[in-house]
């Protein structure tokens, strides 16, 4: 049994507009049998935070193209992407790529 963990979620580059304009969310993920990973976090976000238009945030079991995911200020590609196991106090950022100039 893994204990509940508290994490800090941030949304930016416009991704926050899917979450009522709130850029920062402090959330607690409940206790569960296995440790939390990013794949499960995406499901949890869809069920608990994302009120509408999930297709603007997820595609299949990952984030949609054009959203960059950062785990503790590093590109999630360096951290194992969907398989990364979340630690208490982790900081996870979802940032939309900007194209304007």
């Amino acid at each position: 049994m893994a204990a509940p963990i508290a994490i800090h979620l941030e949304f930016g580059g416009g991704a926050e507009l899917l979450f009522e304009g709130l850029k920062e969310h402090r959330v607690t993920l409940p206790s569960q049998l296995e440790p939390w990973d990013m794949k499960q976090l995406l499901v949890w976000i869809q069920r608990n935070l994302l009120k509408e238009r999930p297709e603007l945030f997820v595609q299949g079991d990952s984030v949609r193209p054009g959203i960059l995911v950062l785990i503790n200020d590093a590109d999630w590609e360096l951290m194992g992407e969907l398989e990364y196991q979340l630690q208490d106090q982790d900081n996870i950022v979802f940032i939309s790529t900007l194209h304007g100039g």
Partner: protein
Amino acid sequence: PLTVKPALSNEDIMRYSRQLLLPELGVKGQLKLSRTSVLVVGCGGLGCPVAQYLAAAGIGRLGLLDYDEVELSNLHRQVLHGEENQGQAKALSAASAVRRLNSTVECVPYHLQLSPENALQLIQQYDIVADCSDNVPTRYLVNDACVLSGKPLVSASALRMEGQLTVYNYRGGPCYRCLYPVPPPPETVTNCSDGGVLGVVPGIMGCFQALEVLKIASGQGSSCGQQLVMFDAQDARFRSIRLRPKQPGCAVCGENASVTQLLDYEAFCGSAATDKCRKLNLL
């Protein structure tokens, strides 16, 4: 190719005296600037400060590319243009502003749309490219052309009150496609015409872009390769993020690259190479 300046003139020494004092630049660095050519893709909110500060610093040749004309709604952020330039080609308006500031810079305006047909031939003539464009297809086009011709790409973007900056295809680091192998669904893309932008945000990002171009051109090197700099104007916060390395599986810079020549980027992205389509729909 640029004629190699053998030494600084007396006028150069006066003009650049305050930056010649810098140990990081000095006469050597200034001569390197004068031998470097930079293509600025887009003379809008980012391109204006980029062109302004590169010309002021004494870059050798400055290519200024934009297909568009100056409109009143540009002037809140595109500060090289003036009211009297409305209706004029942005590339020409920017070039004449830049010449007022520094007539010793060789300034080449291109009043045209960058396309798969002309991009390689243009970019091959320059040492460094600054992506100051405003739409997704152009960003992929510029990236692929820079990878295929081996040029470093200093790329910035801005929207609402946020900005992003990365140096791509630089010293073995990743390219734009390494980060974004698949273009975003068109309905998720917001541009400045529909999302809005505070003018000084591209101002800050464009100055930052000019800084990184100058560091590369003068031989100091950029610190933004394999890094994403994010700026949030609301809380005045900058943040540097470590990015993934160059991806072996990248379609354009990877080991078995499938993109070996430029494609139809509007088809690839499912959107037009302009930030105006949506505005037209709204009106």
